[in-house]
């Protein structure tokens, strides 16, 4: 599948592949048609994290480096160190950064300095650091000198507003919760008029790829999230009366399902999840997912096997590739859920004759990284 190499002119001007996981089939649609695909009483849960300009440049051990913020805990920040270069180079082609020991410093833009507290056992590039600024001074330095994390399949530098949803608030995400990007307020208000209930949580969506095989195989790292009590109440009430829960993006799935697995039921508040979702996963909260399009060698795709039978998924994705759907954060999206309401003018393509829901997909225990390569673009476009 070809990556979208730039933000679309209109955020809601992207295609939507509607995959009915119950009736076993699919049809082409558009994001602005989403309200017609859902029913009154359904709940749409979005990740309302704003996206931080999490790419910072500086100097460490006398060498130019890029620091990509990976996450934050009460005691430290997690960052991934990259060698010389920037997003124009595929992450896997970047030269290795210097190995930094505890106490080493990284001089960043905006007058910000990071001091290394320690390195992960997974990779010497995954560091725990402390910044020398705090409060408003720290955030000002990050926003002044930082840029959105981006990958080499993009055509030009991304503006901060290009990587935001229309409802983002706290800048917890270091990469955009991109499944929600195509949702314009005209669509969200139309969903409300339809009787669909909007709910939110905040999930610190992390890095997709680092170019370090060991680190990439450990992604996603544990990520923090916050579930408001209102969202827990909305979901519980909806489930009691048979409403369906549609997660917008894998970060929402990870937060909701991680929460339920840890506590037995949804518990509001701030938590951390290390849940890894694969095709054999049995979702307990989410009935469906609105997701970005991903290549079939990516674990984001394999995760979708938790929502759909293999043959339906395979056939719908083959259709997506053949008909030019675009993947990645500015690409098209797919809705996977049972019993989607199909507008009459949309042509139904059944997969039920060949689908076998009892056969699980080949499970991936880890999220395989996004291949950050211009070669990918060329291969997919060919």
């Amino acid at each position: 599948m070809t990556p979208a190499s730039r933000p679309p002119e209109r955020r809601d001007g992207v295609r939507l592949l509607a995959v009915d996981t119950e009736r076993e089939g699919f049809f082409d649609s558009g994001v602005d048609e989403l309200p017609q695909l859902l029913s009154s009483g359904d709940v749409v849960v979005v990740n309302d994290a704003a996206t931080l300009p999490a790419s910072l440049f500086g100097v460490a051990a006398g060498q130019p480096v890029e620091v990509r913020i990976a996450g934050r805990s009460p005691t430290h920040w997690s960052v991934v160190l990259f060698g010389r270069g920037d997003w124009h180079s595929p992450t896997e082609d970047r030269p290795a950064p210097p190995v930094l020991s505890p106490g080493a410093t990284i001089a960043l833009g905006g007058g910000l300095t990071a001091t290394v507290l320690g390195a992960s056992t997974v990779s010497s590039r995954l560091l725990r650091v402390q910044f020398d600024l705090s409060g408003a001074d720290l955030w000002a330095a990050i926003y002044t000198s930082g840029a959105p994390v981006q990958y080499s399949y993009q055509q030009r530098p991304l503006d901060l507003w290009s990587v935001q949803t229309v409802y983002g608030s706290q800048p917890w995400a270091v990469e955009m919760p991109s499944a929600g990007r195509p949702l314009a307020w005209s669509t969200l208000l139309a969903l409300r008029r339809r009787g669909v209930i909007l709910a939110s949580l905040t999930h610190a969506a992390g890095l997709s790829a680092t170019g370090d095989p060991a680190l990439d195989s450990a992604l996603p790292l544990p990520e923090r999230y916050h579930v408001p009590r209102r969202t827990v109440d909305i979901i519980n009430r909806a489930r009691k009366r048979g409403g369906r829960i549609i997660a917008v993006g894998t970060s929402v799935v990870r937060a909701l399902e991680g929460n339920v697995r840890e506590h037995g039921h949804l518990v509001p508040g701030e938590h951390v999840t290390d849940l890894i979702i694969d095709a054999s996963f049995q979702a307990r909260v989410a009935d469906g997912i609105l997701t970005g399009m991903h290549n079939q060698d990516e674990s984001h795709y394999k995760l979708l096997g938790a929502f759909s039978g293999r043959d339906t998924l395979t056939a719908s994705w083959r259709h997506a590739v053949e008909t030019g759907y675009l993947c990645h954060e500015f690409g098209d999206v797919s809705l996977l859920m049972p019993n989607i309401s199909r507008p009459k003018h949309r042509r139904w393509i059944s997969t039920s004759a060949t689908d076998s829901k009892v056969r699980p997909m080949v499970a991936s225990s880890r999220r395989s990284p996004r291949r950050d390569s211009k070669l990918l673009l060329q291969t997919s476009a060919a």
Partner: protein
Amino acid sequence: MKLKKLTTLITGGSRGLGRALGETLAHAGAKVVLVARHKQPLDEAVDSIRANGGEAHGIVADVGDKNAVYSIAGEAAALVGPIDLVIQNASTLGPTPLPLLLDTECEDLEQVLQVNLIGPFRLTKVLAGSMALRGRGTVINISSDAAVEAYPNWGAYSASKAALDHLTRIWAAELAETGVRFISVDPGEMNTVMHADAIPEADPATLAEPTKIAERIVDMVRRIDAAPSGARISAPSWQVRA
């Protein structure tokens, strides 16, 4: 509206009405983020609030700068959490002495519109979506009687405030029933640097003190649920006009 821990963003927060609003809201327990262009007076305003036991943070930014808007919103939310009240107080007169429209440079009109109209539009666009999703929030746009009256020499400023008033009404209409409230407030003539810039000959004794006006506005915020979204509230009567 409860003011305790109310997450509040105030533009033009380093002096005049903006600073007074920050001090009054912080005194009532709100978590206040002040935005202003110049660091020194902004730091003084923040320090003053903190010295009195309030919570305040400062963001140095120009609301007329397109590139600053997501930084303002992101930094503010990082500091105090999702913003529930935004008071768009920053504004500019343009060049002074205030010129006739025929003598107003096109670029000066554009600059006034950037700060007084397009800046508030951009910031509302970034903040009100989160409010609508959460089902609560208030946007107060500081207006002027110049938005209604046709005073000679006030053309650029007046047009920007009149348009801001109308934007307020349209925001209210579009987001009706989302729980987000939009209000225009005409605070009347105050003893501020901006007023002195506009009318140097005015007798300060005849002008209201910003601290007094801030108390009136904060009192209105406490009772904001009684004001219909899209309303325009004017000094000195503080009557609501739909």
